[in-house]
């Protein structure tokens, strides 16, 4: 128990010294395990984990969904989404910011990655907002926050990883993410309205919406068609979620070919981007596996369950504690590392405590609901200072905007997120309603 806490402390120290998170986790996990069980077992574990982790059928969805998102990003369909959303909201004050949020939600429905969504939409939406004199705070805030929608609206790489960690049905996790994702979009739209009402200087009074070009319309149909293809494929029983990734990637290549917007060069670049992102994610998964093996052996999950049971802590206190943990960790870590590090610790707790009974949910639904809550909690961390990955991505793209500006611009959306998290915790049926219809 105490070893785990020391391990966590050293891990955070290494991360602050700029050691890549994956390598920091692997090192602390390996040394921690060696300290507790000896060198031979630790060496054996290192080789076994490094090799076996990548040899996995289910994890093949990661490169495939990422590839699908990157090809679509390169094929320019995001521009059509933005133009379409602008037609919807253009007449309202802050219309372009709403269009950004809305099209972020739309693009994330075919992209598994939050950061790819933020990077893509910043390129599409930022120039328009600049041209019409939007305040940088609102402009960047809406894109950084809009990008976080991507990990809840299916397909979602994070939900897949949660499903594999907890042996939860991925098709059910995906469908559970839809309503909370839509609530997220609606609350973000509300956040823009409130923000411009409070401070009208954030957005111009007038902005003329441009008509959609033919390619914009085609782009919207491509995204819509691909989303339906994936959803009908999975829920109509034509292919499994794992296969959906490969089919979706294949379909996105066909879209790129049909649209003729990608050059060979940009297609190859999108491929290499996907490949490197894959290795990055697997490095994190391998590191987290080593670290959680150490934490597991040191008995942290058991100690936590024991503590809760011995003290007869009520469910709400435990949930509050878990959320608080995510808020604290979220200051330093990003979603993937957080999910990989914490879910193995918290998930046995959910089992041991018969949480399901107290929540009036069956155990499988409890795990699905917990997934949504956890993912939203980590989503918030993407825009929480000091380390908000989506904010950083935007900062990388828009060199002339300061980090402080983006973090200030994100504030209304951050408040909307907290509201959504509270709603989702208090009303589990928001997440489980569609699952029940399956």
């Amino acid at each position: 128990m105490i070893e785990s806490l020391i391990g966590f402390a050293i891990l955070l120290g290494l991360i602050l010294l700029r050691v890549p998170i994956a390598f920091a986790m692997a090192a602390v996990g390996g040394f921690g395990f060696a300290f507790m069980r000896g060198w031979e077992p630790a060496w054996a574990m290192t080789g076994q984990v490094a090799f076996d982790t990548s040899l996995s059928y289910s994890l093949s969805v990661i490169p495939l969904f990422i590839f699908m998102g990157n090809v679509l990003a390169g094929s320019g369909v995001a521009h059509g989404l933005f133009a379409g959303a602008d037609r919807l909201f253009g007449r309202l004050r802050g219309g372009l910011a709403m269009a950004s949020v809305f099209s972020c939600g739309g693009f994330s429905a075919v992209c598994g990655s939050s950061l790819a969504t933020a990077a893509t939409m910043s390129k599409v939406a930022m120039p328009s907002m600049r041209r019409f004199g939007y305040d940088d705070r609102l402009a960047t805030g809406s894109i950084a926050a809009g990008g976080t929608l991507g990990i809840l609206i299916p397909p979602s790489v994070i939900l897949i990883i949660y499903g594999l960690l907890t042996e939860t049905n991925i098709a059910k996790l995906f469908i559970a993410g839809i309503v909370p994702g839509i609530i997220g979009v609606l609350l973000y739209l509300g956040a823009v309205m409130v923000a411009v009402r409070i401070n009208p200087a954030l957005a111009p009074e007038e902005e003329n919406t441009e008509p959609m070009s033919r390619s914009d319309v085609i782009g919207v149909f491509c995204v819509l068609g691909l989303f339906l293809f994936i959803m009908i494929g999975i829920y109509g029983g034509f292919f499994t979620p794992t296969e959906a990734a490969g089919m979706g990637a294949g379909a996105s290549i066909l879209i790129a070919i049909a649209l003729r917007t990608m050059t060979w060069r940009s297609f190859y670049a999108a491929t290499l981007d996907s490949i490197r992102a894959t290795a990055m994610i697997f490095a994190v998964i391998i590191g987290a596996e080593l670290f959680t093996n150490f934490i597991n052996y040191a008995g942290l999950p058991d100690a936590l369950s024991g503590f809760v049971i011995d003290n007869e802590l009520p469910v709400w206190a435990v949930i509050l504690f878990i959320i608080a943990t995510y808020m604290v960790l979220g200051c330093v870590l990003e979603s993937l590392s957080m999910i990989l590090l914490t879910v193995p610790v918290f998930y046995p707790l959910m089992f041991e405590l018969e949480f399901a009974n107290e929540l009036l949910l069956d155990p499988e639904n409890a795990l699905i609901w917990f997934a949504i809550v956890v993912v939203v909690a980590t989503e918030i961390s993407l825009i929480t200072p000091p380390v908000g990955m989506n904010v950083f991505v935007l900062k990388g793209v828009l060199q002339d905007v300061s980090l402080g500006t983006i973090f200030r611009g994100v504030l209304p959306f951050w408040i909307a997120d907290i509201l959504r998290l509270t709603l989702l915790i208090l009303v589990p049926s928001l997440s489980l309603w569609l699952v029940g219809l399956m």
Partner: protein
Amino acid sequence: AETKLALSSWLPPRHPIVVDAIKPWAKQVEEVTDGRVTVRVLAKPMGPPPAHYDMAAEGIADITYGLHSFTTDDRFTRSRIGQFSFIGDDAVAGSKAFWNVYSGPLEAQKEHEGTKLLGLFVHGPGLLHNNVRKIETTDDFSGLKIRVPGGYISDLMSGLGSTTLFMSSGEVYEKLSRGVIDGVTFPFDALAAFKLTGDVKYTMKVPGGIYNTTWFMVMNEDKWNEISEEDQAAIEAISGEAFAALVGEAWVGADQKGNAAAEKAGIEIYEAPAEVVDAIKSQAADAETAWSEAISADGYDGAAALEEIRKQAGVEF
């Protein structure tokens, strides 16, 4: 001195084997050694299921269990006796016979290098489930796409004319409900455990099971040697045949639940017709002969062992 052992368990925490066999056994160890040896079941496995044998041998965990067929090399050749058809009508009889024969005349401990062999067992009799047709003649096998766990049953099914596919057991539900496969070989418990009752229409039984899978439970050898002789004897008394009975009971309970769920779902459960059993017998005889020859090189009598295991398990076929 006190010995604290960590057991890595990869089955879901509520699986009957974990709840009714592994955890009770862990408690028994503590009781029979007056607390000098304790076994802690870890909250999360220390590696993927197939790695579990090596994990015990290399000391990543102290105690592990798993399937011999996870290991695709030739380490556990003699364990294959438990995979054949007609091995046991229930998991208690089958497991006890498998322990006695494999650990006795077939010297299982020698194949479990680097570990102390604590338990050997099989699950309930294997069945053939499908959702296309009732198998009444040997021709009915052909064209069926059947998921198999590999090994003997894979050869048997393709020998009978079916197409065999391999995938992890967790994938079976998705593939069966989407028509990628027509059927699967599983014991009764898996019908309930993997929620297959809605997608299966016919379940065929064969005396003693159409196949089985063999399981081990092992402890790291160095850890075992740390334990006093007195405590070792106490642990051995609750392991081996006693553990085979304990884990067998757990399987039987799970099989009963699966059987009830199958009946409730209206699945047609039937005994294989004589013609089909004969076809299986002739296929099985070839496979058994090939296996017997393979182990005879090391001086083991496979045919006698098969006769013995079937006699002990009380299978008539």
